[in-house]
């Protein structure tokens, strides 16, 4: 369980609710996790599982209203992110926490040059003058593998391809040497060959710069390749959390187990029929009083619809929110 002293980011019991005219949507329910320095935490889940909202709540990028952070703590460098004012958060974002969004087409401003956009955080947060900022911006572009960096600073976003734009976004995110980089589905909009380039780049950058990364994705393949630890989310909750090899070799939650068998692979044996998780993801209109996965769970029993399971430790650093014990195949005695 989280709670380690030297974690760069420690989140405790985060609850985020969207207040809409049709009632509250409980998008994030009691999410806790921690991020160690230099580690890459992969966050997996379907759309609507709350993975993006969790991270956005932390850095204050959700539109409020309708979003409300109802409870929780987010410890980062001696501060509680959720209690900081707008100004303080603004100073933090881009300097200590960098982020890369899914769609490289819309996250760059089309009317400014790429150089201007990379220099912006440098001048704002690091107080650099124009000449030094430009020099650093060129270095950054080079770092993320854009050839002819000096000249390309003067180009506009539309002159770059999708993969190149995502590299520019990464350059902006890295500009001020952040302690934490949050990447929200950074390769989902890209082709596989370009995705492979970006993943390779991230592996390289981690070795060079050593920042901690939170990588949000729905692609288990990407997670298997780059993550150190994995957090699986479903229905706004963390259902499983542990080291990557442990999770893939020994998945404890029925959702994680099912997820791994629904995805076909390009290597190894080919299944005649795909396994299916029947049913639909839950509507999050109420505070959960039962396990969110119970309706689709092959292992569900009486207790699952009466109580919402807490996160039980199954191995060193590996926990799951499930009453069913995958090792005995019966109910967990807790």
């Amino acid at each position, binding site marked *: 369980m989280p709670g380690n002293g030297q974690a760069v980011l420690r989140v405790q019991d985060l609850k985020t609710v969207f207040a809409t005219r049709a009632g509250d949507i409980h998008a994030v329910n009691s999410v806790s996790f921690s991020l160690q320095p230099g580690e890459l935490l992969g966050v997996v889940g*379907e*759309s609507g599982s709350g993975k993006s909202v969790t991270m956005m709540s932390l850095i204050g990028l959700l539109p409020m209203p309708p979003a409300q952070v109802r409870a929780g703590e987010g410890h980062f460098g001696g501060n509680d992110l959720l209690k900081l004012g707008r100004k303080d958060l603004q100073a933090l974002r881009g300097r200590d926490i960098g982020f890369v969004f899914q769609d490289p087409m819309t996250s760059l401003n089309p009317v400014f040059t790429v150089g201007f956009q990379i220099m912006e955080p440098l001048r704002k947060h690091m107080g650099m003058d124009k000449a030094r900022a430009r020099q650093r911006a060129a270095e950054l572009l080079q770092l993320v593998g854009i050839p002819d960096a000096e000249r390309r600073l003067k180009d506009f976003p539309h002159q770059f*391809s999708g*993969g*190149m734009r995502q590299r520019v976004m990464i350059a902006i995110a890295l500009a001020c040497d952040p302690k934490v980089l949050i990447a929200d589905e950074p390769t989902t909009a890209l*082709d*596989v*060959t*370009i*995705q*492979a*380039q970006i*993943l*390779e780049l991230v592996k390289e950058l981690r070795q060079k710069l050593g920042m901690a990364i939170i990588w949000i994705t*729905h*692609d*288990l*393949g*990407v*997670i*298997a*390749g780059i993550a150190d630890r994995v957090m699986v989310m479903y229905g706004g909750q963390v259902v499983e959390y542990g080291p*990557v*090899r442990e999770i*893939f*070799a020994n998945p404890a939650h029925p959702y994680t187990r*099912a*997820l*791994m068998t*629904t*995805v*076909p*692979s*390009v*290597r*190894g044996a*080919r*299944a005649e*029929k*795909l*396994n*299916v*998780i*029947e049913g*639909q*993801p839950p509507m999050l209109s109420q505070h959960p009083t039962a396990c969110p996965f119970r309706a689709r769970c092959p292992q569900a029993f009486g207790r699952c619809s009466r109580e919402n399971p807490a996160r039980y430790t199954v191995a060193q650093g590996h926990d799951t929110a499930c009453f069913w014990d995958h090792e005995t195949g019966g109910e967990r005695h807790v």
Partner: protein
Amino acid sequence: MSERRKLVEVRDLKMYFPITSGVLRRHSGDVKAVDGVSFDIYEGETLGVVGESGCGKSTCGRAVLRLYDITSGTIKIDGVEIGAKSQHGLRKMRPTMQMVFQDPQACLNPRMTVAAIIGEPLDEHTNWSKKKKLDRIYELMDAVGLNRNFANRYPHAFSGGQRQRIGIARALALNPKFIICDEPIAALDVSIQAQVVNLLEELQDEFGLTYMFISHDLSMVRHIADRVAVMYLGKIIELAPRDALYDSPLHPYTEALLSAVPDPDPKIEARVERIILKGDVPSPANPPKGCNFCTRCPKVMDICREIDPEYRELRPGHFVACHLHNDTGATGAPRNEHTQQGEDA
């Protein structure tokens, strides 16, 4: 393989979109979205078409159904040549060939009920009575796993996976033989993708359908397709039976594409030797001289920058367009095109 009937025969299909410039809209070039592709689809099989975005796979699918007026080439579906038919003349053919689109949100009219959407092809192409149509609509809803009671609801009341089922039911309404699925699962969540793919497979068995399954998801194509075509910049660069393509790809692009797919198993991931391609796909308005892939190919040779490799059958059923597999490739131009003297192992 030869005794199976060819349902679809496409020869040298080209689809160019003109680029115009200036006030006079002068024709100044072409985007060669599909540039001379040939393939067959046998009755009852699934042909997977894979490639990166912009490689022309969707355009190819749409051109085969003649949703565009094609630039040149011939398309024969179920024995009827449709490449040059007028759009009006095509109407009689439409019931045979249908399409399932990528975005289940955009392809359903939000102001029509599910029954009206599924029944629209029946209104257009049959003169059945109301009662008969409704029976057929219910039958289709059962076939794709939609609850009959929802027939009078509107698309917004359904989830993405269910909307895709509505789209599939509509495509099935007229008992087609051939369905083009254009990225039918790309907009869906992982756990829902498997449901839709399984449904497509069940329907294929039940109704003897033939699919052309267009997707960028190589692992899903491996699951559903019998044969797979790989496209790059408007051309098919390799076409082979599924296992041959995935186990022993011949074209360097196919190799790189397969190696780029991350594997959902950290143990395999650690072992996979990745071929990282440099750079991006060139623009189809201005393809490179010679082989289209020569700008990114890790095994590029001098000849690749000069001459476009010929697309030919290297092993039975395994087509590839690459100079690596022409024994004349390393020395000079393969002038006499139909000599099958290539290495055959």
